[in-house]
Structures are given as structure tokens and as C-alpha cells.
């Protein structure tokens, strides 16, 4: 298990398991990406160079994006991929609940920087069709996981 330090919000999660679940479907997901010259997460700098106090808010928004608009819109008839996405989604839901607790105890403050960074990500995301955007950002999950690992 890994401990993520997001300003004064500290959560414990199993990044290694999430990483290994995603690695089982990464190639097939990225093979479906028709917009290979387009980036969503990479352009927005990293969680690491976000103010520590802002990281919790940015991560909460990003997880919300994955839960609301990535896992939900990713279409597949392959049972193995379906199972892996379910595992990722339920793990992200668990993390989001922990971040929600921090938010409740006002340790998940949304500063200007986090808000702007997320706005950038969203504007890139919305330049693609919903399903294409879901494929793109699911394919970029390594970037998010690396961001999260950097806060260990």
C-alpha cells in the first residue's frame, strides 16, 4: 500500500495493484485511440508541481472526471477489459471517498492553480467526442498514476 501526501490530506491506496490492473488492458485501450497526436493530461503539467495544498482538490476533480466521463463512456464487449475497468473504477471510487472525507474536513482546498489546471484539462478533454475522449484519457492513465506516485 502507498501513502499519498496531498497537502494536509493523507490517503492510503494500492497504486501498485491499480497499475497492474491497467497494464493488462493498456495496449488494447491505446490501440483504440484514433487521436494519437492529441494530449489531454500531459499538457497540463503535473500534480507534483501543483502546490501541495492544491493537490487534493486537483486529484479529486481528476478522479471525478474518470468516474463520470471516462469509465462510464468507455465501450467494450471484451469481458476481460470490462472486468479490469470495473476494478479500476471501484478502486478510484474508494480513493475518491477518502478525498471526500478530506474535503469534509476542509483539508481539500481548491486554490486558483488547481482550478485553472483542471479547467485546462477539461477544455482539452471536451475538444474530443465523449467516447474518443474516454479512450484517450483512459489510455493516459499511466500519467495520472505517475502523478499520484510522485506525491508519495
Amino acid at each position, binding site marked *: 500500500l502507498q501513502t499519498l501526501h496531498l497537502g494536509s490530506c493523507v490517503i492510503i491506496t494500492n497504486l501498485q495493484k491499480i497499475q497492474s490492473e491497467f497494464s493488462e488492458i493498456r495496449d488494447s485501450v491505446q490501440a483504440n485511440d484514433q487521436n494519437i497526436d492529441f494530449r489531454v493530461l500531459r499538457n497540463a503539467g503535473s500534480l507534483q508541481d501543483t502546490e501541495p495544498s492544491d493537490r487534493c482538490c486537483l486529484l479529486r476533480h481528476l478522479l471525478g472526471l474518470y468516474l463520470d466521463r471516462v469509465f462510464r463512456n468507455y465501450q467494450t464487449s471484451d469481458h476481460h477489459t470490462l472486468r479490469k475497468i470495473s476494478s479500476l473504477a471501484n478502486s478510484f471510487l*474508494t480513493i475518491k471517498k477518502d478525498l471526500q472525507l478530506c474535503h469534509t474536513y476542509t483539508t481539500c482546498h481548491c486554490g486558483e492553480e488547481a482550478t485553472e489546471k483542471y479547467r485546462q484539462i477539461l477544455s482539452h478533454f471536451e475538444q474530443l467526442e465523449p467516447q474518443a475522449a474516454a479512450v484517450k484519457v483512459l489510455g493516459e492513465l499511466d500519467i495520472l498514476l505517475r502523478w499520484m506516485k510522485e506525491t508519495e
Partner: protein
Amino acid sequence: DGGEALPAPQNLSVHSANMKHLLMWSPVVLPRETVYYSVEYQGEYESLYTSHIWIPSKWCSPIEDAECDVSDDITATVPYNLRVRAILGSQTSAWSILEQPFNRNSTILTPPGMEVSRNGFHLVIELEDLGPQFEFLVVYWRRELDTKEHAKVLRRGGIPVHLETMEPGAPYCVKAQAQVKAIGRNSAFSQAECVEVQGEALPL
């Protein structure tokens, strides 16, 4: 085929011990027929965000037994809905859904099986291999007046581990507890097991 609907499986329940989760139900019995079953699951994410989606179980879509190991399906510590239906040829029954969602944090954790032995003067323990989600807290001490306990965390079972080099003259005792960080819970400690090295206690 009398055109009667295939009955749905009844009495669904989950028996979970040491992170092994077994979904069980009453079999559908039809004379001279082999009935199969299909199991599907839904994590909390699916029930909240995509409630129409059910995912075929990894090992039981289909299966002949009236039970299904869903351990590989239940991969997060959130409530899971589970459902089963019967299959006979092209006929399928209605779905039966587990009454209460199952969360793996309710699994029963038993004290780990262990083998305490001595190899010459070495105190050795081998713990039951319960799978990758388990760690073990091992506590050991030399049974004498001012007993001082020592503790060691072992990352896995199934391999012998050296705990201590013993001195003759007093037994050494060991007990162990299983720990599952994914659900933040521990088992009770096992019964203590003691071994002793024969011979005189060495003069100080």
C-alpha cells in the same frame, strides 16, 4: 420441454474466509438434465454510475456447480451486488440477486496455520500461504522470568523463516497473526507453540 419457465436459483449467500469469497445457492434440479449457471457482479461504481451494467464473473459464466469463487471479481473494498441465473440449453431462468451487497471487509480472518521448528539452534517458523494480500505479525519470546517479546512482520507465508538463534535451558515460544491491509483488519493470534534446545544453559 414442457414450456415451463426454468426456475431461478434460490438461497444465495456468500461465505467468505481469509479473502476467499464463495457465492453459493440452492441447485436447480431437473430429472435427467444438466443445469448450468451464470454469475454476474456489479461493484459500487457500476451500481452508482452505470446501473444497467453487470459483469460476467471471471470463473463462472457458465459453471455447473452450485457455487462460484468470486474472489477474483471482488477487487475493491466496496459493496458488490451478485446475481445468478440457471441455464438449460437455450433456456435461461430469471436472475436471482444476492439480498445484501457483499463487501470483502466482512471476510472472516482466522489465525494463520504455522509450523514452528528448530534447526540446530535456530528457531524457524513457516506460515500458511494465504495469498498476496496477507502479511503476518509474528511474536516470539524466550519463556523465562523476565520474558521479553520480539516481533517481526513477514510479507508472505509458505516459506521457512529464521526468527532467532536459541540458547539451551528455556523454551522459545511463537504466535502469529494475519494482517490484510487492503481491508485494514487482522486475525486473532494463533495459539503459541514452543520449542526448546536441549543441553545446559551456557554460563554467562
